[in-house]
């Protein structure tokens, strides 16, 4: 028999837990759902899913990070104006190509009283990149190690230059963990009772039911207005609506446009739209015999009326995009206009390319995007482009996205990309360079530009490369440019709070 942390559970299962568990439940069914203590003001938030665990180095999903960002502070952060501002680091600079220096805030302590200092940073960064941690966070792959300069100064030393390190430590990669506590209790207990420096402390988590945090009165940035944060997972919008209307939750985050539409017009429900950064676009296989012709790719862009698509399918929850770089990202070029929405021009271009009788293309997407796909098929059908739609279950689609066989996604596929670092390179990096699996572009010029964007530290040089890249995308049209999705929230109308463009649920600013 292997030794296990919870032998009693194992025994229960072995004995056929149904019977014994039933008895146990029958005894405890009377207890309510733990209201907040006394007159404590709790903010109750529903997301689609809950964290898979509470070790922030093992959490790569946004829903999980939205909980953890309240328990843990990062070195830098994006404020609600999307500026990169100090958090646990007060300032930072590149010492040279291989060295980023961070000056740390003084007098910060973890929830267990442990002081936060350069040693905590070194420990946190090195734990994240240690293969033994098995982290799913990949942003710091170019980091070699961290060096303590003095008690409140630390260097992140790169194996390969990376210009975006300060941005990358604003969320997933930048959470600071208490080395002493982790050494004392071990990783498993740390994940069960996480300790950070953040504005809220962990209280309890009943899986699939309720995750509770309480305000950290000693937080260096002051005590949050709410006494408690409650997170629940509500996968479907009907529960979310019922939850808000029956006063079981105060806020539902990250609603799909069609879910938000379902909540419209109910009293006690306030719908809030904020700009988001998730970019949606169709990747065109530039090696495909028909799509090889740039006139055909431009024709597709002229044929799709994106503003109409946003209005009709997304309930206005999106912004038209002329590129795949989000508007709020570093390097975004605002003066590239979107393609003219002109079906006649599209037909002319197709005829010029020799396809006056129309063409047929295989189009793949996750079935989550079904409505958008059908709208695209309709608009393209009007100019003689017949789409052979293949809508896949999201898991299957994800697998094909990462497959080495480009034909598994047909001649074009719809994708969404969230570049939370707000660097122009974030959404470009997976879709352009010829050696990336999602890329359907073979261009030495584009590869060289990507290398400059990814490896140059000097911001001016990078900015030039980013701008040139977007101009190149505009001329070559290797994508069918669509939209930048909004963030839809539903609240009970009594919460004052605003997310940044990432939609991160950092709730210390909520009133």
């Amino acid at each position, binding site marked *: 028999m292997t030794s296990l942390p*919870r032998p009693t559970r194992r025994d229960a299962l072995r004995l056929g837990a149904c019977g014994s568990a039933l008895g146990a439940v029958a005894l405890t069914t009377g207890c309510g759902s733990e209201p907040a203590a006394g007159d404590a003001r709790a903010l109750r938030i529903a997301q689609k899913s809950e964290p*898979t665990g509470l070790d922030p180095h093992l959490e790569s999903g946004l829903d999980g990070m939205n909980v953890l960002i309240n328990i843990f502070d990062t070195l830098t952060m994006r404020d609600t104006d999307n500026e990169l501002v100090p958090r646990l680091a007060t300032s930072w600079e590149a010492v040279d190509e291989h060295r980023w220096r961070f000056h740390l805030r003084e007098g910060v302590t973890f929830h267990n009283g442990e002081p936060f200092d350069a040693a905590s940073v070194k420990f946190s960064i090195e734990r994240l990149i240690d293969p033994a941690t098995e982290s799913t966070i990949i942003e710091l792959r170019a980091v070699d190690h961290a060096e303590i300069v003095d008690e409140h100064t630390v260097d992140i030393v790169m194996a390969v230059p990376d210009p975006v390190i300060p941005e990358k430590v604003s969320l997933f990669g930048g959470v600071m963990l208490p080395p002493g506590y982790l050494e004392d209790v071990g990783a498993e207990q740390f994940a069960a009772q996480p300790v950070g420096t953040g504005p809220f402390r962990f209280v309890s988590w009943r899986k*699939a039911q309720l995750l509770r945090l309480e305000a950290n009165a000693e937080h260096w940035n002051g005590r949050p207005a709410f006494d408690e944060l409650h997170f*629940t997972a*509500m996968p479907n919008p009907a529960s979310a609506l019922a939850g808000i209307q029956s006063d079981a939750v105060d806020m539902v985050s990250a609603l799909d446009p069609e879910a938000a539409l379902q909540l419209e017009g109910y009293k006690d429900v306030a719908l809030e739209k904020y700009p988001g950064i998730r970019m949606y676009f169709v990747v065109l296989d530039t090696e495909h015999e028909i799509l090889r012709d740039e006139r055909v790719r431009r024709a597709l862009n002229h044929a799709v009326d994106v503003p109409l698509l946003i209005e009709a399918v997304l309930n206005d929850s999106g912004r038209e995009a002329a590129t795949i770089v989000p508007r709020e990202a570093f390097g975004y070029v605002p003066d590239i206009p979107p393609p003219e929405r002109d079906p006649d021009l599209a037909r002319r271009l197709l005829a010029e390319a020799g396809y006056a009788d129309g063409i047929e293309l295989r189009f793949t997407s996750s079935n989550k995007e079904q409505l958008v796909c059908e709208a695209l098929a309709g608009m393209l059908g009007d100019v003689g482009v017949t789409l052979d739609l293949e809508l896949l279950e999201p*898991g299957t689609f994800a697998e094909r996205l990462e497959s080495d066989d480009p034909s598994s996604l047909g001649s074009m596929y719809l994708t969404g990309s969230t570049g939370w670092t707000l660097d122009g390179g974030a959404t470009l990096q997976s879709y352009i360079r010829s050696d990336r699996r999602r890329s359907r572009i073979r261009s030495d010029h584009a590869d060289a530009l990507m290398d400059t964007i990814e490896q140059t530290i000097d911001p001016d040089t990078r900015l030039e490369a980013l701008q040139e890249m977007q101009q190149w995308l505009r001329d070559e049209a290797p994508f069918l440019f669509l939209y930048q999705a909004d963030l839809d929230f539903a609240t009970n109308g009594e919460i004052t709070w605003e997310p940044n463009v990432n939609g991160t649920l950092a709730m210390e600013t909520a009133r």
Partner: protein
Amino acid sequence: MNSAPAPPPSSTPSSAPSAETSGETSTSTTSPTTSPTTSPTPSTPSARRHLLRAALTRLLSSLGVLWAAVTVVFVLSRASGDPVAQLLPENANPEQVAQMQATLGLDRPLIVQYLDFLGGLVRLDLGDSLLYREPVTSLIAERIPATALLAATALLITVVVSFLAGSIAAMRRGTGVDRTVMSLVLVGQSTPAFWVGILLVLLFGVQLRVLPAAGYGTLAHLVLPATTLAIFSVAVVARLLRSSLIEVMGQDHVRTARAKGAGEVRVLLAHSLRNASMPVITVLGLELGALLGGAILTEQIFNWPGIGRLTIDAISFRDFPLVQGTVVLFAATFIVVNLLVDLSYAIIDPRVRTEA
């Protein structure tokens, strides 16, 4: 769960029990004696050997079914995709993907993974979830109580409501009462459970606010999901019981009872229900399967923290060990329920204990 065991009808012509048992019957040696007709415990050595062989056959076939189920799931889940594609962000490079696959043990040959899984199963170790990084057994154990509570409550509602509806309809067959009850039942059978669930939420949770719309914790939270889950089964069981009762009530011993002046209710309780319950018990066993399937949907609608939601997450993330674990649990539940159904025959019908 069953209706109170009634005394055996004195007029039932039951054959004298022999000490033989067929391979199809229960293997329990401590089956409660509910009727004075016979003791189910075999007394002769040859009968004991029979019983032992039957028990062994039963056990082996159960293990075979379990093995088949987990093997199919092992193959299917791995054919359906790679979890690493969803565990890592889009900008993971090939080295990081390869490293994650090695970390999760997914780079080993399939046969090695399969044997490893079977070996673990023998030790009741289902491995660690890829998504939650916790032992599958403890993840499942955490969720069993909620699902067990939901399914058991739904089963209880099914039994009570369907026995009432079926009995009333059978006693008043051909009348307006019969037609009304059966029409209601048919409506219940024809409407999709998730739709009923959402309507119940909107009515009781949102408009009237008399019951919580979703969540877990109090008895009030249990009402809507259990009702939703029970509706379909009620229809199936009530219709079956009605026809079964009508058939039994036409039999000789019931006519005899009526001739002796027994009232309609007494005819039902003392002379008909027990015999009419036999097919119903079989169907209730099957319905438990439907309940487990229905629980997956119902738990999604009502945010019920049970196995169903865990299963959906496991499948959508290709969390192989967790999918395998939930299937082991479902298969084992079915096997146990089948056994219980066979056992209950022996308790309810003395003839089953004899060589039929």
